[in-house]
């Protein structure tokens, strides 16, 4: 286990360095640099040169990268050229929103998904099963941006139940969480169903059934616990999906989270912000996958890594 852990940590480190390199060079390939963006119509050759040297953009790219990484390791992701805020400040400002959004949508997705999965598995091959699975697939197939606007139109505008946009506490995150959680719910429902079915087929459940154990006991005591193991993995895997989904959802609902920040930073060519955010998000995803792996071994004693 410990040697596995070590190996895993090592590859994680390599991945992180790779990610930073990719982010850094990818961003420097983007046409339209912050200098010309800031200067806009007032750009002259002279003013471009001057601003470039002030922002350190005239140094060789490897020097820039080295300087950046040196600071990044010490927890300094740079300062936005334009807004004057440090990137760490910006991330800390906005992370509560995105974290809540992710949390609620996972909660929503898991509760709905697991429930649908159980119903489908217990009533396998009935109309309930088929309907639940169809709904799950629709959840996966529907474009989030499209659903979001109709949800706003119906629940916020027509019925006035929820705020239309902006962040004002838990209430304002319900619709965005549902939008984002639909896909998760679908995925989890499918996963729960299939792993429940696998477990139900196993001998000890059949024995329990033969001994006359009640259906409720069977589902919640025997099957579900074991069936949830792969579901936990799926929840962990959803992390990346949620980060991406947050980009569109936060834009539509005007939520000041990381996703909307990344979109606006890309359009203003705010290099330090885009760089810092992508690096941060990628690190979170790598970390999430790592935690999922660890949880997996913890949850299922049968699984061991060598």
């Amino acid at each position, binding site marked *: 286990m410990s040697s596995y852990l070590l190996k895993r940590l090592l590859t994680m480190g390599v991945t992180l360095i790779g990610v930073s390199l990719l982010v850094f060079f990818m961003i420097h390939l983007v*046409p*339209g*640099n912050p200098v*010309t*963006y*800031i*200067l*806009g*119509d*007032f*750009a*002259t050759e002279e*003013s471009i040169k001057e*601003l470039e040297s*002030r922002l350190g953009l005239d140094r060789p790219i490897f020097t820039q990268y080295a300087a950046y990484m040196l600071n990044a390791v010490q927890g300094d992701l740079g300062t936005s050229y*334009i*807004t*004057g*805020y440090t990137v760490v400040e*910006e991330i800390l*400002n*906005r992370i*509560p929103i995105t*974290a*809540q959004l992710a*949390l*609620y949508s996972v*909660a929503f997705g898991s509760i709905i998904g697991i429930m649908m999965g159980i119903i489908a598995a217990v009533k396998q091959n009935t109309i309930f099963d088929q309907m639940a699975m169809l709904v799950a697939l629709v959840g996966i197939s529907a474009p989030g941006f499209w659903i979001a606007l109709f949800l*706003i*139109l119906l629940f*916020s*505008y027509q019925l*006035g139940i929820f*705020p*239309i*946009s*902006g*962040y*004002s*506490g838990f209430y304002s*995150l319900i619709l965005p969480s549902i939008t984002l959680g639909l896909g998760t719910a679908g995925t989890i429902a499918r996963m729960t169903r299939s792993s429940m079915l696998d477990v139900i087929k196993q001998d000890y459940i059949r024995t329990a059934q033969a001994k006359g154990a009640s259906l409720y006991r069977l589902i919640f005591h025997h099957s579900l*616990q074991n069936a*949830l193991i792969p579901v936990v993995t799926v929840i962990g895997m959803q992390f990346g999906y949620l980060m991406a989904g947050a980009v569109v959802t936060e*834009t*539509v*609902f*005007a939520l*000041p*989270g990381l996703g*909307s920040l990344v979109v*606006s930073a890309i*359009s*203003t*060519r*705010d290099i330090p912000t885009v760089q810092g955010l992508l690096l941060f998000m990628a690190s979170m995803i790598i970390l999430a996958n790592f935690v999922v792996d660890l*949880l997996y071994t*913890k*949850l*299922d*004693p049968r699984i061991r890594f060598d």
Partner: protein
Amino acid sequence: MKKTLTLLFLTMIVFALILSGCGKKAKKGDREIIVAAISEPDSVDVHRTSSMGDANSALYDALMKYDDDGNIVGNLVKEYTVSPDGKEVTFELKEGVEFHSGKPVNAEAVKASFERLMESSPFKTNAGDISKIEVVSEYVFKLTWNEPFAPFFTNSTSNYLSPIDVSVLDSNGEGFEKNPSATGALKLVEIKRGDSLVYEPSDKYDWGPDGPGFDKVTFRFIPDEETRILEFKKGNVDVLGSVPYQYIEELEKEEGVTIVRVPNYVLSYLGWNNKKPIFQDVRVRQAIAMAIDRDSIITNTFRGEAKPVFGPLPPATFGYNEKIEEMARNKYARDLDKAKQLLSEAGWKDTNKDGIVMKDGNPFKVDMWVDNDPANQRAAQIIQSQLREIGIDLSISVKESATIIEQTPQGAHEMLLWSFGWLDADVLNFLLFGDGKSTRLHYEVEEIYSLLEKGAVEMDQEKRLKLYEDAQKLLVEQSPWVPLYVKENITAIRNFEEFEIHPRRNLIIWQNVKVAK
């Protein structure tokens, strides 16, 4: 295993509760105004930001202003005198004006502000090539330029040259955006990054006998167009700027809603890279201008909420000339037959009858860049179908504005649908047709740019206007672009007794805003 799961869920719940504790929104007060804006200004620091709009410019008050007749008169400045050679201007400030911080606005403070502008602002070109800033007495300061700089007075009606209170800066000359202090009508109270900016009327500002007509202004940033409109319709927002044209009619029907229209000072134009061989022939350029039907674009994309412009400058800009406009309108009113004839004289003929004109076996195909504004994209499609009528095959490429700004100076584009907004005719020189400065159009002709250069240093207004008139005549004749229209700036408001938007600068005039009881 059960324990682990329970623990996991418990942590999640606790985490959620902690998180949802932060950021409760306060109830809206009676005299509070909520303005919905598209995007958050990148900074409230005028020496840093790339965009000045309502959400950050009310912090500032300009040195000069326009009076009701469109003349430039003093604002923070009481009087000024220009030296005979035009290189020195002495300004006398009004006495008793204070920054938000309570510090006096005197010659020293203005000097310090200009020094910061010259030292670190990317927009210092707006102040011209200043060689010396001197304090003459407590309220008098003198600026000296290496060359006379005529656009200074127009430019100083904008906030780019407004004095800021440098005493709030840290030792690195930064930190203004977190604790700004200037002389404007509004004082910054709170910044919620990505969400809102909260202001209150400044107690240092001259509000007249009745005092300010409101207690608080909140700018909320809602990037999505539909969400913004729904918030307004629901009554959660009092002022909705840049209303999409297709919604005007609908909003007008809402109870208590007033639509405020102000002509925008930004001129949209159809431009092209004049260095490309295809645009070398003046007949081709004129034919394109004659193929455009501005009225159709205006009716079908802006619901009639724009005014056609044929000449090089829009009415709000200093240097606009009705004679020129008239001349351009007569010359370039839509005339498909004449346009086709000009094309065929230039050698472009539809030889294979596919509807596209050809020359030397090559079809007339061009690509046009447009930014991602939905209304501009609609206009682009109409231009596409109009040019198709004279046999030009136009394709549309959507580019981010940042890309357009960076790549047009290198001449990577063929055509583009773009715009400029500047209140002084010097824009023709520093951005559009100046020597080595024609970054969007690449049209640099000596007989035109020499006139423009003279205009930049001519301190006599009459002579200056004449120079720009001559230059514009040549531009109309040469047709290196097609000026299109000035859009109407549409704002929807509710619950106001008084509300006014500056006709030239397109900004809310906060002295003239009063909420209804």
